[in-house]
């Protein structure tokens, strides 16, 4: 049978091993892979290695170092603050319950600007079309792009079209770039999380990714789940109004889901995050599909949900303001920022235990957006 209970204090050797691991982890990741795999596009650890290990060191720049959803354009102290971002869309299938690639392409870029506190004013749209693409499909997507841009109040001011041989693009890919003026109320940055900040999500999570998964028809699962794709500016506008400078940071929880957003920001701000699992809104039908497929909704992509970090004093105001926005009625406070352990996300499970919610490793599902 077993020995006596081990001593509760850790030995010096164990401490050394833990310190070694921490040192290794706090170093900037190096990009050492021989090939690009689908994991590099999934929004998890491999994506982070690609961005922080290859792209950021090569492109440098103060704006890029921030690793925000959109970059600020330095125009001098007197000029209006501008933000700019770019996003590309390769989703399969092109149309799915709740939306299509054209709508995603506009909302994705508009939302990335919104997360920097900027309202999109101008967009460019580049289309990469596959030889043989049905003209009606293209017409429908062009209409979807125009409609979504009108809804967001952004003007399409330029673009490009390319056609590639059959087999080199799956129907169509879209790339959009957007520019907007940063709202004077906004003081948002990934480094601004503070212990005590409350964490809000703007509605039930994991709907876009689950809708795409089911739309592909691989699983013989039928459920009424639609993508949540929408323009998030009205939600951001309401939050800025209610919380102003007490709104510390915003992220839209796209690839890699809410879990990836929390991990990225915990690292960027050197703080811990505690999520109360029971408070996270997930529609029962989405929870059931995730259960069957063995997928954690916290890692599933959203296209119309944001995560907001607000000072504790502003919690109620922010939540009420958010819930008054159409589509955000089920917004909820899901947890808070903690001082310890820095860089880590912990979950208080509905069952009463705790666990670490790590970054996504690998890719549960490619080409989700």
């Amino acid at each position, binding site marked *: *049978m*077993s*020995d*006596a*209970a*081990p001593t*509760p204090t*850790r030995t010096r*050797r*164990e401490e050394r*091993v*833990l310190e*070694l*691991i*921490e040192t*290794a982890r706090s170093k900037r990741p190096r990009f050492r*892979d*021989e*090939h*690009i*795999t*689908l*994991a590099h596009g999934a929004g998890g650890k491999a994506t982070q290695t690609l961005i922080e290990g290859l792209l950021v060191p090569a492109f440098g720049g103060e704006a890029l170092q921030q690793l925000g959803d959109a970059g600020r354009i330095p125009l001098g102290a007197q000029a209006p603050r501008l933000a700019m971002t770019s996003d590309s869309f390769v989703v399969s299938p092109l149309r799915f319950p709740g939306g299509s690639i054209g709508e995603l392409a506009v909302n994705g870029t508009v939302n990335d600007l919104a997360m920097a506190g900027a309202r999109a004013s101008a967009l460019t749209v580049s289309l990469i079309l596959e030889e043989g693409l049905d003209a009606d499909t293209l017409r429908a997507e062009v209409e979807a792009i125009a409609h979504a841009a009108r809804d967001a109040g952004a003007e399409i001011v330029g673009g490009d079209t390319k056609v590639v041989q059959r087999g080199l693009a799956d129907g169509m890919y879209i790339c959009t770039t957007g520019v907007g003026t940063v709202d004077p109320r906004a003081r948002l940055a990934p480094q601004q999380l503070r212990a005590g900040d409350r964490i809000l999500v703007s509605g039930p999570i994991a709907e876009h990714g689950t809708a795409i998964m089911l739309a592909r028809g*691989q*699983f013989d699962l039928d459920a009424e789940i639609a993508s949540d794709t929408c323009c998030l500016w009205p939600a951001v506008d309401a939050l800025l109004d209610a919380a102003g400078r007490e709104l510390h940071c915003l992220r839209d929880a796209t690839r890699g889901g809410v879990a990836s957003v929390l991990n990225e920001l915990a690292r960027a701000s050197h703080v811990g995050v505690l999520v109360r699992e029971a408070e996270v809104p997930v529609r*029962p039908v989405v*929870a*059931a599909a995730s*259960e069957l497929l063995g997928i954690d909704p916290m890692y599933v992509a959203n296209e119309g949900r944001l995560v907001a970090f607000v000072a504790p004093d502003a919690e109620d105001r922010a939540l009420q303001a958010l819930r008054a926005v159409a589509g955000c009625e089920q917004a909820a406070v899901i947890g808070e920022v903690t001082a*310890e*352990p820095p860089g*880590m996300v*912990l*979950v*208080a*499970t*509905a*069952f*009463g*235990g*705790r*666990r*670490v919610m*790590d970054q996504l*490793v*690998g890719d*549960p599902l490619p080409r989700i957006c």
Partner: protein
Amino acid sequence: MRFVDEYRDAELGQALAGEILAAVDPGRHYKVMEVCGGHTHSIYKYGVDDLLPANVELVHGPGCPVCVIPMGRVDDGIAIAHDERVILTCFGDMLRVPGSHQTLLEAKAGGADVRMVYSPLDALRIARENPEREVVFFAIGFETTAPSTALTLQRAKREGIRNFSCVCNHVTIVPPLRALLESPDLRLDGFLGPGHVCTVVGARPLRFIPADYGRPVVISGFEPLDILQSILMILRQLSAGRCEVENQYKRVVPDEGNLRALEVMAEVFELRPHFEWRGLGFISQSALRLSDAYADFDAEQRFSTPGVRVADPKACQCGEVLKGVIKPWECKVFGTGCTPEHAIGTCMVSPEGACAAYYNFGRYARQKEAV
């Protein structure tokens, strides 16, 4: 969700935690091994170990079917996948298991046609839809998944699908457990029996554990309340001086197992004389290969593979971690040669392995103690 949420009730969990606390001898340290990777997953997912007293320690066992696959077998799969005629199919979690120089995911990035399936029947469907290609299913798993591979092969034979074959890496649970129990330095007090395996093989094959090695076994379900209740049952056996196989998972596991599944397996598979386990070395009669009647579907005969044994590095001490002899951080290569990004041993390969868990969550454990 009905029939699911009932087994995740936090109040019942607290009640069981109270009973466990009452059942332990505070002066004694208990080490209980959960044999199955599915249990490990649930323990992490729900934070089950947070509800246990500090002197009840869970040790993760050898029952993760992905992380016991040795590097040489992964290399064989990759070699087959690089054959231009081949579509290699496998379960998703197999894609990231390192071979000696790459994973199947990296082979896919390098041009191999590797596809993830949820069931071997999906692989058979791909074979039907691509008659000009060779479709190979890289089969892994314990007795839990072996019947579905066997059924798929029966169907392929019946339908005369000639472009389908299987790399059989199916393993059996009893031999590695016996190997662990044979170890003179074993420090385990009891076992959570693998509920899904027992659904197929029944409770009888585990009787040797109490009979020959004097350790209690409780066959456990996979929901958090199942696991807590099973731990309580083990502790009660220990304090009463009983030692037997008990079945907590009666709603699913019949004592005699699933006879139909066992029949199908007996027709399609036969025991290999020996098989290599990552971290545990060669264990005789611990794995399955296709029987002579199904030799036509054996990918190992259809394709040439390197078949090279890639030794686990000498410094790797996974075996001792699995036996509970050393803690992950006491291993010579832990955190230096062996990290989750570049895993050497089985315990670091899967995120649920003991070493990977400690590497990722060790800081958090320290935090927890401070609180």
